[in-house]
């Protein structure tokens, strides 16, 4: 079958082999590799583009997608509206098929867009510097704990149990390398926020950093201000934040956070089954040289014209090798640029508005659910766009029933919290219409007659 990506004609291959001075590609391999036999890979033969598209269309239709279904799942990945202009721009070949801007003179598009991105992250978080992206929120958070260790050399990481459970898993994996101890802080069963008493108990002279999430995994808005007062100044105060929420919540930087990270998917990135989104990473200028990841800086060219370059590269693996601040090389620049475009479109007012819409609608649903038989709000803490609902019904059955109504139901907390067996986490964003919310409430109101309890 014709392959449109491989340009070589037979006669060219011949000419090229002649130039090289071998008689065949096979000979070339024999010379380079030594004696060997080709492998008869158990891989099907090529398909044509038309069949490929059909086959993948079919595959995609084996998934239920939330363009067609209503969704109330969040828990780390959120369905915010993505303006049409965004993907159109981000997918221009010049953005998509460029790589790390090693040659700044022909990469000003990448560099300026990432410089703008860094600025936006600083603005959202109110931190002084931000790098140009990490893989995801979880690895960004884990890198933050490693950075804390490299700043103060202490070996205990205190992490609230209200931090996303998967993020905590990742922290543990990263910690193991450096032999750091991860100590978890309980949550308050009444409010759903970090248990301050437990935190105080666990603080020690070995504590390197304290990690909380804002809003936390239960949707509850941790009181970063009070937390700040509990955490000694010489510890590293790390906050994992939802950047959309920062449209309406006081930014961690204003509470003296030392490192602020988070998952950037919400900023104009499709969910993609959880990846690729990106991690953002922001800190104080004084910690600059300990930061992981790429940094874009402003400079001038020989004519004095403004331009942008990768900078402070001596922190990085390609220069510092085993002493680098992190091993990260390829990052999630494209996703970060998507975020920059998203934030450009939304701007100062839009980010507030999208946060407020999510907040208002989430509260609308929460109140309605709380009034239903069988359902009540689990926690009393203030929440942004997610909240935990408890029921005496079986969530699996509830969710199965909802699925039949073309609704992707809430996240069952028992997956990660054995003690929260009857609880599930609902999420609402600006994309959930009132009529859909009311339909959901109606279905759940009538549910005891619909499923067998």
């Amino acid at each position: 079958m014709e392959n449109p990506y491989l340009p070589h004609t037979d006669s060219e291959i011949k000419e090229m082999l002649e130039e090289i001075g071998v008689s065949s590609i096979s000979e070339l391999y024999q010379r380079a590799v030594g004696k060997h036999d080709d492998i008869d890979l158990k891989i099907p033969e090529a398909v044509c583009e038309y069949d490929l598209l059909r086959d993948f269309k079919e595959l995609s239709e084996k998934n239920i997608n939330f363009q067609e279904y209503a969704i109330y799942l969040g828990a780390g990945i959120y369905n915010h509206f993505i303006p049409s202009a965004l993907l159109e721009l981000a997918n221009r070949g010049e953005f998509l098929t460029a790589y790390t801007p090693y040659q700044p003179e022909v990469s000003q598009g990448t560099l300026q867009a990432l410089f703008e991105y860094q600025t936006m992250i600083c603005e959202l978080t109110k931190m002084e510097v931000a790098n140009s992206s990490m893989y995801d929120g979880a690895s960004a958070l884990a890198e933050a704990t490693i950075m804390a260790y490299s700043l103060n050399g202490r070996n205990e990481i205190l992490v609230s149990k209200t931090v996303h459970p998967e993020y905590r898993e990742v922290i543990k994996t990263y910690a193991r390398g450096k032999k750091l101890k991860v100590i978890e802080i309980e949550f308050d069963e009444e409010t759903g926020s970090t248990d301050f008493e437990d935190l105080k108990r666990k603080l020690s002279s070995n504590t390197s950093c304290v990690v909380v999430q804002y809003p936390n995994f239960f949707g509850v808005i941790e009181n970063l201000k009070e937390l700040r007062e509990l955490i000694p100044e010489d510890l590293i105060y790390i906050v994992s934040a939802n950047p959309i929420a920062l449209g309406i919540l006081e930014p961690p930087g204003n509470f003296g956070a030392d490192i602020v990270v988070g998952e950037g998917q919400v900023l104009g990135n499709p969910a993609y089954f959880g990846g690729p989104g990106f991690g953002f990473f922001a800190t104080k200028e004084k910690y600059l040289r300990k930061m992981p990841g790429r940094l874009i800086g402003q400079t001038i060219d020989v004519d004095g014209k403004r331009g942008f370059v990768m900078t402070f590269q001596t922190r990085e693996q390609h220069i510092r090798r085993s002493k680098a601040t992190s091993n990260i090389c390829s990052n999630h620049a494209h996703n970060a640029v998507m975020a920059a475009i998203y934030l450009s479109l939304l701007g100062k007012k839009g980010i507030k508005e999208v946060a407020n819409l999510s907040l208002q609608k989430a509260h609308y649903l929460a109140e309605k659910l709380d009034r239903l038989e069988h359902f009540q709000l689990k926690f009393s803490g203030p929440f942004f766009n997610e909240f935990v609902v408890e029921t005496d019904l079986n969530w699996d059955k509830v969710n199965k029933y909802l699925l039949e109504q073309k609704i992707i139901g809430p996240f069952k907390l028992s997956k990660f919290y054995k003690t929260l067996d009857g609880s599930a986490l609902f999420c609402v964003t600006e994309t959930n219409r009132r009529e859909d919310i009311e339909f959901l409430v109606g279905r759940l109101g009538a549910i005891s007659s619909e499923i067998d309890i």
Partner: protein
Amino acid sequence: MKLIFEKSKDGRTGYSLPKLDVPEKPIEEMIPESLIRKEEAELPQVYETEVVRHYTNLSRLNHAVDVGFYPLGSCTMKYNPKVNEKISKFDGFAYIHPYQPEETVQGALEIMYNLQILLCEITGMDYMTLQPAAGAHGELTGMSIIKKYHEDRGDFNRNKVLVPDSAHGTNPASAAMCGFEVIELKSTEQGLIDLEELKKNLDENTAAVMLTNPNTLGLYEKDIDTITRLAHEAGALLYYDGANLNAIMGKVRPGDMGFDVVHLNLHKTFSTPHGMGGPGSGPVGVKAFLKDYLPIPVVEQDEKGFYYFNYDLPKSIGKVRSFYGNFGVFVKAYAYILFMGKSGLKKASELAVLNANYLRSKISKFLKIASDIVCMHEFVVDGSEFKKYGVKTLDVAKRLLDYGYHPPTVYFPLIVPEALMIEPTETETKETLDGFAETLEKILKEAEKSSELLKNAPHNTYVRRLDEARAVKNPILRWKVDV
């Protein structure tokens, strides 16, 4: 170009959000006063047209594979098929949530499952995790597995990892992140593993040997069987950095060479776009005895053909990131493999090697190649001769920009002085290679006449040579209103 912030105007808007269709409650009733944002984030206030123009024009300042030749060594800047982009945007891939019930994402799981199997087949490994987000992340995953493996066997003293001095920086960095001490192995004159050096360093404290094969000079380690045997005999495991897999598909396999752990770069070998620096994807394959150490979850299939996540790997290293990896990238890589097919993949490797050797042969007529050995998919120029023209590799690279080429990787691998690392990939034509070689030769002639021409290059780019030192001395890492 102005920054988007510099185009901002108070009160201008570029969004169109749904109306608030529920009764509005005062925010103060929902959020404690002290946690409500007081000062707005200084985001740009621009309208859609401006955003479209801004990012359209920014994009036009980039070189890219879609624009021209991009022979950036070690990065496999091959053509990224458009059909894969189209496929990856199907709603059933882009708009699915990682916590949806398994029965609602069978298509996604099928892709992951099959991709795992295909990658195992290509590498000769037994099991594969797709979780790592990039090559370096794969290294971290792989080295964590190796670490846990030794520890689980009570072998707590294996704290050293041997890495050739030609290795990519991520190799030592990843090993170090896992708490290993990194021992650098000096390469031979030709740039290969020095067996004596290896033997000298292998001992009961060696946890692993990390190799790239073909290595960063584009050379195949012909003694690979000996190397892996020696390492295994010393009780060490063998780690394979798969960044250079594009040279060997359907020809030889790391699994067959004796490697225990392998990472791949889907964004290199499997043609997913590099996106200005990412996202990539760095799946890790292991031999069967390491399966239980893989990060959770792995995708499996039951007797009824149902795909599910298996979280039950008691020895697992845990997780290296949230969810399951860069699924959007998997879709493209899987589509690429199916489109190319068995013969196409092999042909891709063959032509990558053909292109590299052809270009190497042409360039060897006027420049010194770092090694005499027949190369695989890439080769390295030793730029020490540039000195005689009074220029450096950097100057040559910058001059290439004036001719519309993206320069090769420069100053890497570190063991070659003034290195120019050239990887043409299989998706380039002979004409392109001829043109590139001619241009390089022409640049040398220019240098002979006037080294200044090169030292002041580039001349035709949007910005000219940038002052990197200044960026460090006077760091400006974000825009500020008053700057």
